[in-house]
Each structure stands twice: as structure tokens, then as C-alpha cells.
């Protein structure tokens, strides 16, 4: 079972919003998806990858991602990441990973100081993390953003920039960072929503590469 259908844990916090679509996208890529509650203190035994989905956990109160990053399940996620397990944080999930110290930097309000929902063009910047499939550096992906605090700020040297925005850099992110991984490359946070780009009918299926990577990389390791 685990070889063809690796178990992907999708963690749900109060105020998570994109967990269902992220689960759908992971399942489409071949995963067995297991929802995990924020108050749980362990990941399912067979977990081979974790998704922290988008949303407004705890209403974005205090600082986005801050309260969720202190939830009981996060200790398990931290341990899982420490063992080299793949963790994908999307939007609020990215904010949570930064607040949890698993990724460098912080996410600040967009340069418009308003919420921004639009399709964006991302450019692959590091093809060696395993997150972008076989796509070479410079490959463009069309994936939407939808966030209020989407401008990453930090020291890129503390991680690996996997995806950048094209020159329009809509959120005003430092170094046009759209997605950044930790130095080991197994934890990725990205503001754009690949789960909203897994079906040409909803605008694009370029986001599938990330879910395929989540699964593909795992099948390689599992062998």
C-alpha cells in the first residue's frame, strides 16, 4: 500500500481553509490522505509527507501562523521534518512553518497592504530540491496567490529559494521569493496555492508538479 499510495498527512487547524482542496490534489497525485487534528500529538504511523494547508488559522490574529505554530501537533511535525520527512506549507502553512522556526524569515503584508487574489507566474530557481520534478531552472509555472501577508522577508542564505515570482513580484516579496525550502530541502513553504492549479478547468494544472514531487520523492526514498 505505502509504495504506490504513500500516506500524506494533512494537518487541520481551526481556521484552516484549503485542507480539502490540498487533500484532493494529493489524492489526485496518488497519495492516501489522512486528516490530522491540530490537538493530536502524533502523525499517523505510516506518514511519508505532511501538508500544512492554507487558510486563516486562528483568524490570523496576533501574527499570521503564530498561534497554529504552537499547536500540539507541531512538535510531531518538527520531529518529522528533523528526520528528513517532506513537509509542504502552503500560504498559511508557509507562515506557520516560519513562525515554528522550520523555515527562515517571516511573511509581511503585501505591498498593497490589501488582500490579493490573482494568477501569478512563478519561475523555478532551484531544480535540485526535488520539489519541482524534472523542471529546469527558469521553467515558468502559472499558480494563483490569495493572501494578505505574502511578502517574504528574511535572509535567503538561510534556505534555498525554490520558486520566485516573475518580474511583477505582486506581493513585494524580498528577492521575489514565492517559495523557499530549508537548507536540507525537505521542508518547503510557498505562498502561491498549487492546490488551486491542479485542473485546467479552474485555470491551470501547473500546481500538480508539487504534489507529484511530494509523492514521487517519497516513492524513491521508500524503495
Amino acid at each position, binding site marked *: 500500500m505505502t509504495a504506490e499510495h504513500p500516506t500524506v498527512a494533512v494537518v487541520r487547524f481551526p481556521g484552516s481553509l484549503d485542507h480539502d482542496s490540498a487533500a484532493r490534489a494529493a489524492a489526485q497525485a496518488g497519495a492516501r490522505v489522512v486528516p490530522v487534528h491540530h490537538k493530536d500529538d502524533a502523525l499517523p504511523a505510516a506518514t511519508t509527507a505532511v501538508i500544512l494547508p492554507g487558510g486563516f488559522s486562528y483568524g490570523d490574529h496576533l501574527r499570521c501562523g503564530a498561534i497554529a505554530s504552537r499547536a500540539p501537533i507541531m512538535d510531531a511535525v518538527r520531529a518529522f521534518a528533523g528526520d528528513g520527512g517532506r513537509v509542504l506549507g502552503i500560504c498559511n502553512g508557509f507562515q506557520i512553518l516560519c513562525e515554528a522556526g522550520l523555515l527562515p524569515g517571516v511573511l509581511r503584508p503585501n505591498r498593497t497592504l490589501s488582500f490579493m487574489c*490573482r494568477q501569478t507566474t512563478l519561475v523555478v530557481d532551484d531544480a535540485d530540491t526535488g520539489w519541482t520534478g524534472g523542471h529546469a531552472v527558469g521553467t515558468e509555472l502559472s499558480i494563483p496567490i490569495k493572501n494578505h501577508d505574502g511578502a517574504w522577508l528574511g535572509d535567503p542564505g538561510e534556505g534555498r529559494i525554490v520558486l520566485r515570482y516573475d518580474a511583477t513580484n505582486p506581493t513585494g516579496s524580498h528577492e521575489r521569493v514565492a517559495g523557499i525550502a530549508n537548507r536540507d530541502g525537505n521542508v518547503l513553504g510557498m505562498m502561491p496555492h498549487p492546490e488551486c492549479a491542479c485542473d485546467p478547468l479552474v485555470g491551470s494544472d501547473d500546481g500538480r508538479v508539487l504534489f507529484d514531487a511530494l509523492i514521487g520523492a517519497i516513492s524513491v526514498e521508500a524503495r
Partner: protein
Amino acid sequence: MRTQTLPRHRQLGLTDWEAERIPQLLGRDPTDTELVMFSLMWSEHCSYKHSKPLLGGFPTDGPHILQGPGENAGAIDVGDGMAVAFKIESHNHPSAVEPFEGAATGVGGIVRDIIAMGARPIALLDSLRFGELTSAKSRFLFRRAVAGIGHYGNCIGVPTVGGEVGFDDCYEDSCLVNAMCIGVVAHDGILRAAAKGIGNRLILVGNKTGRDGIGGASVLASAELSDDEDKRPSVQVSDPFTERKLMDCCADLAQRGLFVALQDLGAAGLTSASSEMASKGGLGLEIDLDRVPLREAVMSPAEILVSESQERMLAVVAPGDVEAVVAICRDRFDLDATDIGQVVAGDRLRATAGGEIVVDVPARLLADDAPVYEVPQNPAPAPTPLDLAAVPELADLADAWLELLSRPTIASKRWVYQQYDHLVGADTIRRPGGDAAVVRLPGTNRAIAVTTDCAERHCQLDPRAGGAAAVFEAARNVACTGARPAAITNCLNFPNPEKGHTGWRLAQVIAGMSDACLALGTPVVSGNVSLYNESAKRMIFPTPVVGMVGLLEDAGRSVGHAFAQAGDVVLLMGTGEPRLDGSEYLGRAEGHPTPPQADIEVALCRFLADAADAGLLVSAHDISAGGLAIALTESAIGGAIGVTTQIAPAERHDVVLFGECGGRAIISCRPDAEHHLRELAGDLSAACLGVVGGDEIIIQVGDTRVALPVAAADDAYERAIPEALA
């Protein structure tokens, strides 16, 4: 203070006659708490006392209607045992006082109506009206209302997929903020509000009760806004985070079959929720006010009963399930859930505080027996015809065209919808910016098309025709996406119906909407009325906002409004007589707009859906504000490609280009599909307009050639609203 000297019932907004009626119905004098409850439940906002007799005229039946008006929302069958529940509601007066929180809590309120049906909200729309953007006040209201709607919708994870915004000086003192919500639910999962089962418990779920909006929405919405500070309630602050938890929690409890009945707490709070649940169920309810969780140290029974604290729901639950319900709310969703009373035999609503009975009235008196008033029916004189000779025909039509494109009412609304998450759920197939939005029903291959529309100038000039025009425009928008119009909800935003011609206009608009609904087979399943939208200086136009839902059997067959490829043929479908009367080009409510032609509208909608089903359309776009030239421009901008067209001249070129009327849409198709489409069209007129291609929008009227580069048009269209706000 002046109000101190008024008799109590007048302070509360009851007329002398109403105050005399209460003891007659009750058989004794009401307690002060009861009087407060009556004053709210008998307000226009809660009782519809000035509009109820007229609303009866709407057609509400149809084979696909599962729930018509009267519940928290209407519901229609969408196949495979699934239903779609939807409703639109106004939050005009609170938004005028505090636009961010007013608009945000408006969204929260309509979402709870959908939750109360047992449905999962899947889409939101908003219909907005403000004064001209040259007014600082209107800019502020517009900016803050949009931010508030975005804040709430984004935070609860329901995509805001569409809506409309219009600007006219008549809304300067009375902005309109209407929100519509659509949810999905299995037929057998539809919940209703009626209390059932003597001995069942009443569980209050969600936020604590505070002094929010005491006497607020209901009193405010029932009288013209004055500067009377005393009438200003404490503003409700939105808490979308709690709403999302409430949404998830109610879905979970409904799934487990733990609800006997469910009702949201809106205007008049616990009073309205409990009296309606009791009255609908033909049973009594007992509430122990000492058990209601409070945010303040001390609140009077009346305050607890009429508090409009947001993000609360009232559920009827079997006694054996109470423990499970409370535990799930608390442990899984971090929500308060409190047993506050029970269903009892009889018909009375009884509330106790400190062991004493403070309220004991037949629930029906509060919920159903408010007085009903016939509003005066004074027909407005027919408007004077438009003197075309007095409307200067501009020498440079391209200039006029660009100017029209950059009018805020016509210009791109990207500044608005970019602040709304219109993608969450990953089922948005047609995004805002076109005609209707298309949203896939989760887990299926079907989709709904949704839109809100109005024709307020038309309604001002000719209310019956205008009411019909609003419904037909909504239907065209839905049909352009390939969907078949199914049903409508509506929000009747009007001035004071007791004055002038407003009562008559209200009746006429309802009659016109009903005509159109009957012609299209789209019954009214829900709605809302907002009256008294006027100040000493200004009255709003009659603004009946129509929210329509249409169905697409195959989500993959939906059609967008954008031209796509060079060489595609452009056809003008349908017929109408474009006029400048009441048009956006004219910019004022003057003259006689073209009355809608029901048979053409119906045939056009059918054609568009059939053509989409057959996979023959590349694009379809209805012609509305700004006329043919604007519709062509929007299709060209949408596809970033030009078009060359030829149109027969009429007495004036500006009438041909910018004149408005219903019954028309522009489609594009591959050249080899044209023949098929003409066959499908039957008697419906299909005139060849031209060909897609190039980077200019060229319109040849007789021997006059007018042209705009697509890029210049796009620039004017996109820049208008951001620049008006800068």
C-alpha cells in the same frame, strides 16, 4: 435629551396604535422586556409589515423547488439528490454607519442563513451601490465596505465569486451593501427552523452574548437614518474566525444527525430566533436567561433577549444528544455550546431570569402577528421623453467610447474582486470579470452559474419594465456561461414606502420581476427587503437586486466572455431597439428605456445554453450597460485580441454604439460552427458582426469607422477605479 420625554413605546419605535394593540392581543399589559421584544419583532426589518402583502405576488413554485420563501434560505434541486440553498440580504444601514464592520457582518449574517439550512456555503456574491467616487465620503464607504466583505469572506474560506458595483449620486446618503450566499446540501440533509419534540433541548452555540447592536439592525433599518446619536447602537464587530468554526461545527453535527432544528441569530437576536422556531413548530419554548453565556458582567433580560451579537446559532437537540453536542463543540471546535432551555407543549415563549418569569407570550404574536400596512399606491407620472436633439452627438466617437470605458460603473472591477479570495475550494471555473461566475458543485461534474444584477435607472423610469429587465439581465448573464437559469433570490432596496410614489414603484417592480420569472420559469425562492433608504436630500432609485442561480450539467462545457482566436466569427444574437434613454452613456435617469421583450429573452437564454451544450461557442457575452461597443470591448480585453465589426447605421451613431436594451448577446465561434449555430437559433436573430483578430477593436457603422487599440481600451478600463480612489 429629547427622547427621554417620549413615551416608552415611541422611544422603542412603536406607533401609538401598535402599542395599543399589544395588550389587546396579549390580554394584559406587556412587561417592559416584552415591550422591547415586540418593538423589534414588529419593526419593518423583522416583520416586513410594509412589504409583505406585495411580496405575495412573486411566483414561488416549480418542479425543482425544494424550499421556497419562508425558511432561512430557499433551495432547489440540482440533481443526484443534491440541493443548492441560496439567499441574498442587505446590510445597508449598518454599512452606512461603519462600512467595514457593517459589510463584514452582513456577509456573516447571510452565511449563517445558509448554515441554518444544513448547507455548506460554497460561494458568495456582493451587490454594492455608492455615491459618485468624486465624493470623499463615497470613496471611504466603497473602500471600507469592500475591505470588510473581503475580510470576512476570505477568512471563512468561502469564495466571493461575483457581484456588482454601481455609483450614482442617489446613493450618496444611503449606500447599498447586499450579500448573497449559496450552499450545497443533500435533499435529506436540509434542516428547517421549526421547533419539534416536546422535551428537546435548546442549545446556543458560538460567541458569547454582549451588548452588540442592541436595537441595532432592526431599528436602524426601519427608519430613515438621522443624526440622532441615541439611535446608534453599539457596533457589531465581525469575528469571521468564530464563524468558520461555527460553519465546520454545524456541518459536523448535521452530518452526525444531531440537529432536530437549526436557526441563526440575526436581527433581534434570541427573541427572533426563538419566537420563529416556536411559531413555525406550533410549540412553546422555555429559555433560562441565567444560562446564556455573557460577555458583560451584568445584562438585563431585555438586553440578553435582543442582543445582536454575531456568530451564534440556536439548535434544537434531543435530550440524549446534548452531552455529545456540547462535547463536540468544545473539544473539536473550541466553541461554547450551552443548554439554555427546552421545547414545551403549548404555544408560548417563556423566559426566566433569576427564577422569575420575565416573558410569557404566544410566540406567534411576536413572529407572525405584526400589523400589516398597505403602502400608498400613487402612480408616478410617465417620464418625459428624452429629447435626443438636446443630447449633443460627440464628434469623436472613439473619445466618447474611452470616456465611457473609464466610468467607474462600467470600468473593470478588478480592484474589488482582487481583494476577494474567489478561488478557495478550487472549484471556481469562471472567475469574476465576465458575466456570471461558474462554480463546480464539490465532488461532482456539475456546476452552477451565479450572478447579481439590477436595472435601477430603468426601475426609476418605468418600474414594471425595470423589474423585469433586472431579472432578464441576470438570466442573460447566467445563460452566457452556458447555464440554464433555475431560480432567483432578490433584495428589494427602496426608499420610504410610505411617501410619494415609492409604494407604487415597489408594487410595480415586484409585478415586473414576477412577469419575467414566470416567462423564464425561474421562481423566487428567497429574498430580503430594505426600505427607508433615503435622507432629507436624496432618495435612492428603486434597486431590486436579483441574485440568480443557473445550472450546468457539465462543468467542462461552460463558456467565458473573452474572444479567443483570430478568425473566429462574431455574431450578434437576439434583437432589441437600443436607446440612450436611461443609459450609462446618457448618465442620468431620463426618457423611456426600451421595454424588455420576454419571448426574445427566453429564446436567447435557451439558445445560449443549447449552443454551449453542443460545444459550439468560443465566447458569449451579454450586452448591457454601455451597449454594443462596451460589450465588444470587454470580450476583446478579456482575450487580449482585437475584432473587426460592421454594423448597420441608425439615425445616430452613438445610439448604435452605446444605446442600451435587453435581448442581445455577442457570441464568437469557429467559422465552421456558424452554420450549426444558425440552425440552433431558429427564429432568434443571428446577425454577423465580424471577425476576431488584430489588436484593434474596429466598429464600422455605415461608412464611419471607429477604432480603439485593445491595449488603450484595457488601460482605460483597468485604471479607472484605482485612479478614482487614488
